[in-house]
């Protein structure tokens, strides 16, 4: 009897492990219209309203939690903001006396005129209904899918700027790869100036602008926007962030530019999908 129980236990373990490996293999080998993806789509269609409802129900609790977190960080933020105001005032006074400031303002004005975002595109509004807690992926699930006109590679934005792009679409939901994901690459330009580069995420969540030629002059505080070039999946002029630091090493071919994204990725709630 005891031997039979041990055997049964081992068989259960072996079957479940084999099933897991088979599912994993099938998932990666098949296309988006395969069986495993189909099952995922079907289940998501059924539980989508439940997830959406849960996200709404838990919103007051999440807001409360964030409020508590803000309280702890408020003191240091006030100090940092005071320093920033002082620096800005000093910087502004200095800049007002130079011709360079006029050039910069003119360039910024041109930027705003030329790259109004988003322009001549349709937008689908959706709610973030789930997000992965895995440290290895930066993705969220939104409550709009192919039935709303959403397609793979469509850019996703919110009031602050570029959130990411659609990677998988189901009927009533879609998966969004955030700008911070390590497999996210966005063809971008620095404004004003027009230096070109690729914005990429990382596993640590830091966002950098890569492949910017060493001869290009990039300064802290400049804007990074999507380039919208022919080969890019993004429309032109979607704001991504601001240059935080610029590092140049003699041995490197390109500059090392850290970016502070406009979007607060920890508090995504309502987003819009840019339908191309």
């Amino acid at each position, binding site marked *: 009897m005891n031997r039979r129980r041990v055997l049964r236990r081992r068989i259960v373990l072996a079957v479940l492990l084999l099933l*897991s490996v*088979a599912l994993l293999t099938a998932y990666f080998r098949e296309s988006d219209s395969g069986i*495993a993806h189909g099952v995922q789509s079907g289940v998501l269609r059924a539980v989508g309203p439940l997830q959406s409802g849960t996200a709404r129900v838990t919103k007051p609790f*999440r807001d409360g939690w964030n409020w508590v977190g803000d309280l702890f960080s408020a003191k240091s933020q006030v100090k940092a903001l005071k320093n920033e105001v002082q620096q800005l005032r000093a910087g502004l006074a200095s800049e007002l006396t130079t011709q360079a400031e006029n050039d910069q303002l003119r360039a910024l004005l041109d930027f705003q005129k030329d790259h109004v975002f988003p322009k001549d595109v349709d937008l689908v509004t959706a709610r973030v209904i*789930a997000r992965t807690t895995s440290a290895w992926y930066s993705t969220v699930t939104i409550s709009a899918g192919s039935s709303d006109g959403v397609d793979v590679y469509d850019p996703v934005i919110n009031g602050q700027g570029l959130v990411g792009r659609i990677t*998988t679409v189901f009927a009533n939901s879609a998966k969004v790869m955030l700008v911070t994901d390590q497999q996210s690459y966005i063809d971008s330009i620095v404004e004003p100036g027009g230096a070109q580069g690729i914005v990429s995420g990382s*596993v640590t969540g830091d966002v950098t602008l890569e492949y910017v030629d060493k001869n290009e002059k990039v300064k802290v505080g400049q804007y990074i926007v999507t380039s919208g070039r022919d080969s890019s999946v993004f429309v032109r002029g979607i704001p991504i962030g601001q240059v935080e630091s610029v590092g140049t090493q003699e041995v490197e071919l390109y500059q090392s530019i850290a970016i502070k994204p406009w979007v607060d990725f920890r508090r995504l709630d309502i987003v819009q999908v840019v339908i191309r």
Partner: protein
Amino acid sequence: MTISRTARQTNERAWPTWAEVGRLAVVLLAAILLQTALAPHLRLLGAYPDFALIIVVCVALVKGSETGAVFGFLTGLISAIALMEPFGLSAFVFVLIGYLAGRYAETADLPAGVAPLLTVFIATLIAGVLLAMAQFLLAREVPLGFFFGRVLLPSLVLNTLLAAPIYLLVRVWLRGAGDLRAAAAR
């Protein structure tokens, strides 16, 4: 009262009754909802709590290795569907975790107060390493400093802190409050 007695008593029966399956289904639903709706918004110590993993361990400690493995498989599968993650990866890890935690409960004689903390700690360690290895195999970047400092260490602390209250709730739900009172009296 030791943790092993609870799981060993369960393991002596053939399969869970329908009433037990119903209770396990409720725990499964709670695990999925906590993991998908609550965990993403509870960033503590730089990590997110892994409710699904903790609950799989707790169920395995109370119900034994077979139930733990099956429960782990279902939890991994459903959470992967809900979070649009690759099928089978979490399921594979959770099957192993559920089975090993269950076997540990069936064979070891640790005090019930220590066992959930220790098991969740080790389970988090195993799951973290397995998932990092999987990422490496999937050709994703896995910086060791980031993995140990900002993923594994915070997760170990956070999951271990949450283990005791969740274990208590799961045990009371699956075995009734009388079981706890009896354990305390012994």
